[in-house]
């Protein structure tokens, strides 16, 4: 079982370019999330999706968009990259079963290290 896969592993991107970070899970989890990790700031939520077909904004959504066409995939798009989007990006998923404490346990992918120059 792969869990969550992310691609690419790392990328150097010129400012102004468009980039899509891919995320796929094979656990049939309802909810998926995108975070960015920056030194001294921890993990900050960019966007999330509670179920296929729905998305929501997190703490730092500006400059990013997501889609959730099916249960397994949750791509994150930077329409026009800027240097402040240099970060490590993590995708995560959770079961989201209503009423269960495990709804809060999220499983993370290995991350994508993005450098915008």
């Amino acid at each position, binding site marked *: 079982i792969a869990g969550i896969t992310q691609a690419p592993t790392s990328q150097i991107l010129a400012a102004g370019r468009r980039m899509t970070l891919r995320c796929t899970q094979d656990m049939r989890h309802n909810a998926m999330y995108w975070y960015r990790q920056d030194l001294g700031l*921890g*993990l900050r*939520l960019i966007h999330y999706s*509670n179920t296929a077909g729905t998305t929501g904004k997190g703490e730092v959504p500006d400059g990013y968009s997501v889609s959730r066409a099916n249960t397994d995939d949750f791509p994150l798009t930077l329409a026009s990259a800027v240097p402040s989007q240099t970060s490590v990006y993590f995708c995560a998923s959770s079961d989201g079963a209503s009423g269960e404490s495990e709804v*809060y*346990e*999220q499983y*993370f992918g290995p991350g994508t290290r993005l450098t915008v120059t």
Partner: protein
Amino acid sequence: DQQVKQNSPSLSVQEGRISILNCDYTNSMFDYFLWYKKYPAEGPTFLISISSIKDKNEDGRFTVFLNKSAKHLSLHIVPSQPGDSAVYFCAANSGNTGKLIFGQGTTLQVKP
């Protein structure tokens, strides 16, 4: 403003001793707290959690304590091992949406 704070960026302990990682929060509506562990070049992995109706949860060498009146939780690792060296994040749930709010992280180094 940071709703979940880990005020110690780093901690160094000797192998075999106790490691205590601290976390403070500001939102009294948080009702579930988690600790994640992260090794370099890997994603965070779930370690242990606690519900707000409890004040302690134990899993092997790891124990999490919750003090709701002080809005404070701590992770105790006893005995500490070199393999515990990692970044530790505490997180709190935001309502019942499943969204988590993370602290800044504390880098633990366990010296042999």
